[in-house]
């Protein structure tokens, strides 16, 4: 018989190795499934690796894909630290993207050193606003934010589609539901010639450091963690719980909004309603894989992005459905959840009596 016994403390080695082991376990399980459907597992693994990191092109593609995931991963990590279950990063991403397109596609023209910050601010503000409603509902009327943030995703996406078909439709777009392109001054510069990698990754990495400092070094971050750790003790100690939740929500929404900005103004150049293949939801996996540690969000996002990009290559070469990538990401989330069980509990085998 197997029993779980709580650990009084967790070895640091285990805490560090848990995500790594979980990631490897997810890949191994995925290969088992590949073998099951008859694909040559060894070749598949090679293709996956090659597609994710086998060349400069592959690497830049992985980093490009990681950029929005870092933003949405940080958005989830910040919110989850305060036990604000923001499942709405997808909607906040679109809100940010919409604001970026509204400000950046010719309405205002400024030199790049002003234009880019302006677009970023607009997107961040829109993302923050998109989360404000659910947070206030939670704080004032204790409405479950899991439900509201999730449903807001659909509302915002439908709103974006409405704008794309109506007021913000590109008159030069030959009838496609898309916005006018972001003006050149507003586009994030490419980092490497001929590649798609753009300056969004630098902003993302900057945010990783900022969020790390915020959470671990500032009084506000301390208050956020205290509210997440034990809201009633936080209230007893004089921490304004509602205000802290609102601030957390604004920061989380802003980060998710920046993901939309970076996709529109860094990669695509205009907004369509298929901008994000679920970056908002994958951000949750990224944050969980990083154990909500902001510094770990970057490697975690790069890993998930590598899986997505590598699986693309692999599925094209082997003729396997590209949903395979989603499978690996889901396996990674499950592995992390199971792995975190082992950091809190010790497994004991006992002989049956």
């Amino acid at each position, binding site marked *: 018989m197997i*029993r779980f016994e709580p650990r009084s403390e967790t070895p640091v080695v285990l805490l560090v190795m848990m995500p790594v082991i979980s990631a490897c376990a997810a890949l191994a399980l995925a290969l088992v499934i590949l073998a099951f459907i008859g694909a040559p597992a060894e070749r598949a693994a090679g293709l996956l690796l090659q597609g994710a990191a086998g060349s400069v092109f592959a690497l830049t593609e992985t980093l490009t894909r990681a950029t929005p995931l870092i933003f949405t991963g940080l958005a989830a990590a910040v919110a989850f630290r305060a036990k604000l279950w923001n499942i709405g990063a997808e909607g906040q991403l679109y809100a940010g993207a919409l604001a970026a397109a509204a400000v950046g596609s010719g309405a205002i023209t400024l030199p790049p050193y002003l234009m880019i910050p302006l677009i970023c601010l607009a997107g961040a503000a829109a993302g923050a606003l998109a989360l404000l409603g659910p947070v206030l509902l939670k704080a004032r009327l204790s409405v479950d934010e899991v439900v509201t943030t999730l449903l807001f995703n659909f509302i915002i996406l439908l709103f974006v589609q409405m704008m794309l078909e109506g007021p913000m439709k590109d008159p030069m777009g030959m009838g496609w539901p898309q916005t006018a392109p972001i003006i050149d001054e507003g586009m994030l510069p490419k980092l490497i010639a001929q590649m798609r990698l753009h300056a969004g990754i630098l902003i993302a990495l900057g945010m990783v450091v900022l969020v790390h400092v915020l959470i671990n070094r500032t009084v506000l971050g301390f208050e956020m963690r205290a509210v997440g*750790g034990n809201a009633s003790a936080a209230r007893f100690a*004089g921490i304004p719980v509602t205000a802290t939740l609102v601030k957390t929500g604004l920061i989380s929404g802003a980060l998710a909004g920046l993901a939309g900005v970076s996709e529109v103004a860094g990669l695509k150049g205009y907004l369509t309603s298929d901008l994000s293949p679920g970056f908002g939801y994958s951000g949750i996996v990224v944050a969980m894989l990083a154990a909500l540690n902001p510094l770990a969000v970057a490697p975690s996002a790069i890993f998930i992005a590598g899986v997505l990009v590598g699986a693309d290559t692999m599925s094209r070469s082997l003729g396997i459905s590209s949903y395979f990538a989603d499978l690996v990401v889901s396996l990674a989330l499950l592995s992390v959840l199971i792995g975190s069980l082992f950091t809190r509990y010790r497994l004991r085998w006992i002989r049956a009596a």
Partner: protein
Amino acid sequence: MNATGSAVPPSPVLKLQGISKSFGALIANDAIDLELGAGEIVALLGENGAGKTTLMNILFGHYVADSGQVLLADGVGGWRELPRGSPQAGLAAGIGMVHQHFTLAENLTGLENIILGVEPWYSLRSNRGKAEARLAALMQRTGLAASLDIPVERLGVGERQRIEILKALYRDARILVLDEPTAVLTPQEAEGLFAAIRQLAAGGLGVLFISHKLSEVLALSDRLVVLRGGRKVADRPTAGADRLMIANLMVGRDVAPERPDKANPGEAVLELADVRAGAGRNAVADLSLTVRSGEIVGIAGVSGNGQQTLAAMVAGLEQPASGSFRLLGTSGDASPSALVARGVGRLAEDRHRDGMVGDMSMTENLVIERRHDQHFSRFGFQRRQAMRQATETAIADFDIRAPGPEAPLRLLSGGNIQKLLLARALTGEARLILANQPTRGLDVGATSEVHARLRRAAASGAGVLLISEDLDELFALSHRIAVMHAGHLTPAVDSAGLGISVVGLAMAGQAGPEFSGCSEPMREAAA
């Protein structure tokens, strides 16, 4: 019953043999032997961390012992080993447990709670009639009366506890384990419980009784077993033992009996007059009370009589609906942060729920109330060095046993957690201290340290409002005592002239002439 060692030894029903259990380096149980006879009442004593809980968890199959056996009499003179790690096997073998925190479904009636889990899930109609008849007979036989047909949430604690016991008996328990059964009862209710337990034991039930309260142990048990540091240090008949002797056995050193120091009351630090606040069960009315600097005022009462609301007001979590409420001479902003800034130190009643963030470090928990102090933060950034130094000072001053200032607070024992929270409440110049159940769940050693701190704080000029259910504690510390019942507070009277039974009666709503004038609010000046 064979309270004073009758000639016939009880036939044993339960034997624990050589139970050992360790968690990492910590040896929680070290070769413990324990025997329980039919009809015998055995008290299991020990400080927190002595190994009582571990031993009971092994008995119930929640933990698996590293070595040793749990043996049950099979009724025909032989012994049967209880399968390890199987709570179901324990239940089936007739081990019943009444937990300190009741495990009743609040929205179900007593009857439904009792038969819950006994009826097979596939049975289409429940045999309520049969169950009712059986329970009626059981209540008749044991004297445990309880109303079975109204939802448990509408019953008082004493009645809920009787339902818990009936639940165990309904499952044909031969052995009943009671974990701190009187923690929530008035002295009168406790007496009733003891009478029932004695009757059950007379009927052949083996009772294992876990308690911190030495007077109860002496009154009820036939035999007492003391654990200390995971070992059994005493196993003797209760007859001939006394309080001080048991306390010394538990702590392993001499414990001096406590008396309050001389009071030196100064100006008023807390003044309530005709305060009304709270709602429903927690409503309070006509509260009048004054606490002066240099004195400890104790509030006695069974929990749930309005102490929660009184404490919430002094902690800054609730505002009075009417009446005059003056803290440290002003009736201004009384939010938690404003109170902390003005020098009110607060200990939460439920330290795990309101006092601490278990996953955060000791350091973070220590500075949480003063996080905005110039000393601990600058421009919104925390000054970790200063924070850590403050924690190291607190660890040294308050003799806190901990792995280090960065250890998560939840890893500490209850006593050490409370010492850290006390350090937090007493830092700076605390002029009013709210000590709400300050030693609940603490062992004898930690309790006496907490008491010493509160006395010292009062001696150096702080006013202390002590809210406690533990009468021994109230009498050991308080200069004046008031009793709270059903949302009303008696005047606070000098504790020197009060008897425990008088306070007990007032806790049950029958305040005697000692608390004269409690029907109409009396001004403190008269006290």
